[in-house]
Structure formats: C-alpha cells, structure tokens
C-alpha cells in the first residue's frame, strides 16, 4: 500500500511538472497584460524541437536548450502580434496553436520521413528529476520576482494599468514583450520535459491540451505563481490517478478515465466563482 501511494505521488509530481512550467509562463504573460492562449502550441514546438535537436546532435541537453529557445521564439511571435500589431490576443493564440501543431506534424514528415511520431532519440534519462525540482524553484523565483523586484512590479503594472507605466517614462510594450518571450521559453521547457524528459520521442498531439489545463491552473491559482503551481499539482494528481485506477475500477473503462484531468480542470474553472480578479488590463492591447 505504501509503495502504491509512493508511486502515485511520484507520478503526480512528474505529471505536474510540464503543467507547472506552462502555468508559470501563463502567469507571467497574463500579469503583464497578454493572454497567452498559445501556450499549447509553444509546448508542442518545444517538445518537437527538443526531440529533433537531440536527434541531430545526440545531446539531450542541447535538445532541452533548443526546446526552450523554440518556445521563446513562438512567444516572440505572439509578443510582436500583441504589441506591435495589437491583434486580438485570443485569435492570435489560436492561430499560433494551429501553426505549431501543423508545423510539428510537417516536421515529422520532413525530418523522420514518417507521420505520427518521431524516431526515438537520446533523452534526459534520470536527470529529468532536476527539472522536476527546478519547476518548484522556478515558481518560487517567479513569485519573488513579481512581488519584490522593480522589474516584477513594472510587469504587473503593465497588466493592471499600462498607461501608468508609460507615464512613469517606461515602455509598457517592452515589458510585455519580455514577459511573453519568457512565457514561451517556460512553455517550451514544459514541452521539452514531456518529450525528452518523460519520454524519448515526439508524437502528434502529445501535448493533449496541457497548455489549456495550465491556463485553467493560472485562473484557479489566481494569477499567482505559487497558487498556479498548487493547481498544477492537483491536475497532475488527477492525471496520475488515471494510471493508478486503470484496471482497478471495473465499471469505468480506461478510455473514459482519460477524461479525468480535463474534468478536473473544468470543475476548477467553475469553482473559482466570485473570488477571482484578472489583472485589470489582461488581454487589452496597449
């Protein structure tokens, strides 16, 4: 029994890790005033790039770095769209998700000459535990940065009232750009964890809505890095539960159990009524 519980806890931590990275990306982006619906696509790009660079160089570490960089690049696309062109951030994020998913599917055909999944590549192996620990450290650092550093306070000000930031002689768009690029890098890291941390390949649709679950975690955690991390742990636990329950609950097929994490996210979305307040200028172009 103890062993089963331990297995569950370990699995929950592993399943929560990519969500935490993406959710932290969501927090920083939204606190700066940009809604990042594109987290899902940034994760997919990070996951695919990490695998492909690891495939090309046989170095999972380079793969990891490339995944982060690729996520940041997609973040930059959204940042430019949101700041320079002042597009509707939700529409732009939706477009980015399609581009990233299609791009990875195209890439599979171009690089591995096969649709559906990549070849198996060198993965991080046992070192991926460092990334699990790093996720919690990143949450602490982001929390402290937003609360106590001048840069963090200015990012938050951009999300609440960008005009005030401009009146103080600073450029709100520069802060938003930086925040969204960091957001993309974090989502890319989360994606890389999925592909070369937990596994050793990329397959189509492997991010499976995690970018959106992370967004639900951002809301459930009330735009706070620590709160969002807690929410991700809950969602990760539900994902782990699905594996633990497989075969043990006769009346519920394992196919239906795949819905667990999504149902948990739906309940969380509905359960935060009346208590939440998004940053004042979240989603509003400046």
């Amino acid at each position, binding site marked *: 029994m103890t062993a089963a519980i331990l297995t569950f806890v370990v699995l929950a931590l592993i399943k929560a890790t990519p969500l935490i990275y993406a959710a932290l990306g969501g927090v920083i982006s*939204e606190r700066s005033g940009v*809604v990042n*619906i594109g987290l899902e696509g940034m994760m997919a790009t990070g996951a695919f790039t990490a695998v492909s660079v690891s495939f090309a160089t046989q170095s999972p570490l380079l793969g990891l770095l490339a995944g982060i960089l690729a996520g940041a690049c997609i973040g930059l*696309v959204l940042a430019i*769209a949101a700041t320079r*062109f*002042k*597009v*509707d951030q*939700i*529409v*732009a994020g*939706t*477009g*980015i*998700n*399609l*581009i*990233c*998913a*299609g*791009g990875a*599917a*195209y890439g599979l*055909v*171009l690089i591995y000459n096969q*649709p559906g999944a990549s070849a198996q590549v060198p993965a991080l192996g046992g070192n991926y535990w460092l990334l699990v620990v790093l996720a919690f450290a990143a949450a602490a650092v982001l929390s402290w940065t937003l609360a106590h550093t001048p840069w963090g306070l200015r990012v938050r000000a951009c999300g609440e009232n960008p005009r005030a930031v401009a009146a103080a002689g600073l450029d709100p768009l520069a802060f938003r750009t930086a925040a969204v690029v960091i957001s993309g890098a974090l989502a890319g890291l989360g994606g890389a964890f999925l592909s070369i941390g937990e596994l050793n390949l990329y397959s189509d649709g492997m991010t*499976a*809505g995690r970018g*959106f*679950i992370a*967004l*639900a975690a*951002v*809301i459930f955690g009330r735009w706070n890095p620590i709160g969002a991390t807690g929410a991700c742990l809950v969602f990760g636990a539900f994902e782990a539960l699905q594996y633990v329950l497989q075969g043990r609950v006769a009346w519920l*097929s394992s*196919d*239906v*159990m*795949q*819905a667990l994490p*999504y*149902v948990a*996210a*739906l309940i969380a*979305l*509905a*359960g*935060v*009524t009346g208590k939440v307040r*998004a*940053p004042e200028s*979240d*989603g*509003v*172009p400046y």
Partner: protein
Amino acid sequence: MKSVLRERTLRGPAFAIALIVVLMSLAMLVAGTSPLDGFAALFYGALGGRTEIGETLVATSALLFPALGICLAFRAGLFNIGAEGQLLVGALFAGAVGAQIHLPGVLGIVLLLGLGMLGGGLWGAIAGWMKAQFNANEIIATLMLNFVAAALALGLVSGPLKGPLATGAETAWLDPSYWLPTLLPQTRLSIGIVLALALAVFLNWLLKDTIFGYDLRATGEAPEAARRSGINVPRMTWFTLALSGAVAGLGGAVIVTGELHRFNTQLSPGYGFTAIAVALVGDLEPLWICVAAFGFGILEAGGLAMQASAQVPKDAIHIIEGLIILVLAARRYALRDTGVNAP
C-alpha cells in the same frame, strides 16, 4: 450600431487567399516541386471529376456546419473553440441511437438529425452554463470539453456501443432507410450540403433581421450596453453556446447519416478547428462562410492528391490555416470589447 468587431470589407479574405497561394507555392518549392504542378494536382484532386467534386463538397458540408456554429458564438463575443467536440457528440448521439432504432425512414432521419443537434447543443450548453453561472472562461471550457468528448466517445464505442461486427471503435451500421439521400449520383455527397446552405441562409436572416439576432450581436459588441438595455446577458451566453454547439452537432449527425452511415471515433480529421479559419475567412457572415467553406473543402479534398504528387504533406495545410488566422487577427478581426474576458 457600428461594429468594432470587424471591417466589413473583402480585403481580409482576398488577402487570405493571396497568402494561401504564396505560402503553398513556397511549401512546394521547399519540397522541390514546381508550384504549377502542385496547384494542378490540388485542383485536379479537388475538382477534376465527379468523384473529386463529390469529395470536395462532402468536405465543404463537413466544414460548413461547425463554421456556422462558430460564427454564431463569435458574433456573440464567445470564443467557442469546442466545435470539434460538439460535432463529435452530435455524431455520437445520432450514430448510437441510429444503430438501435426501427422507425419509418423519414421519421428516423429527422430524429437522428435532431439528436445530433441535441448532443452538440448539450455539449455547448455545458460550457455556456459554466460561463453564465460561474463566469468560467469559455475558451478553456470548450477546449477541455473536446477532450472529454473524445474520451467518452472512445470509451462508449469501444465498449457498450461497439457494433457487433466492427473492427475498430465504431457503432453498428445504420439501416439504409436512415441514410440521407444521395445528391450527386455515384459519389458520397448527400443532401446534407443543401441542409447546410439552407441553414446558412436561415442564420443570416436570424442574425440580421430578428430581435434575437440583434440582441446576440449587441451582446457581442457591447455587453455592458446590452445589459443596460435589458438583454439578459447570462441567458444569451448559455443559449448562444448551446445553439452554436447544436449547429456543429447537426454537422456531426449529417456526417453519420449522410456519408459514413455509422459512428466512428475518427470521423473528423479536425473539422472543428479548421472551421475556425473558415468562419474568420468568411468574415463571420454566414453567406460568405459558405464560400470560404468551399475554398477550404478544395484544400481538404485536394490536399491528399497534392500530398501524393507534389510531396507536400497534408499537415502543411494546418500551418496555412493558422497563419491565415494570425494574419486576419493582425487585420483587426478584434474580438475585444466583446465580453471575451481574459481567462
């Protein structure tokens, strides 16, 4: 009321078409094929004969329903990205019941199409109710529901609802008396497309010439003003998402009764997502969406032929769809000030 939502011009869609041509040419050049050959393959594959035209119109119809549903939601300022799940649940309702019932043909067809609307409408209404009751973000809710729908459909159809002779996750065949009549002989094209076009005309009228349509648009374009003028915004929200889902669900039922003649978990290769691009390229106007759906139907049906002869993977089309959405967004297809609140 002046629309802050969209520029009512054709410059956006024209730009989108030009963009598609340029990007696809580039993709073909990268793959080492002459764009001329590539486009020839695409158009031949989509329009080169009776079968090809039939398949193009089948895809047009499959895209048109979810795109019309999305159009309704977007016009009300609700970002419904769950058309894929709504379509699937609609198809599941129609397929599951259709494999069991024994009714006179026409009555059966009407019942199955109605069940499709019910299933899709239910799925949309869940997100709508969550938004209206708890102010839950509808973008995340509708997307989560896609995954729930897929898991539920897979579980049911590989278990209790699996057809006795089915090899995969499929229901039993529908009795031929419930098949929608064929429109173009010797093709798979059913009269479903006529239904889709009629629906587009109806929705165009509903949006433009009825009080309900005015209220819906007002809710989308100026929710605060709508509320102050006495529109029950929460009720509008859940009802619009339910209606949006019902239209997508009807599309699912049309695929089941019109083309596949049974429910299969693989019945949509992402129609609900492509439909977002269709709705935006169609300028969120039901009649223009019909034109856009035909265009994307050509891409969908001709894509396979292009893949074979021009070595451009069909997946590349999703990149193009995404770029179109991004570029049209950059052309200020702004949904802001429309009650699409930040998550």
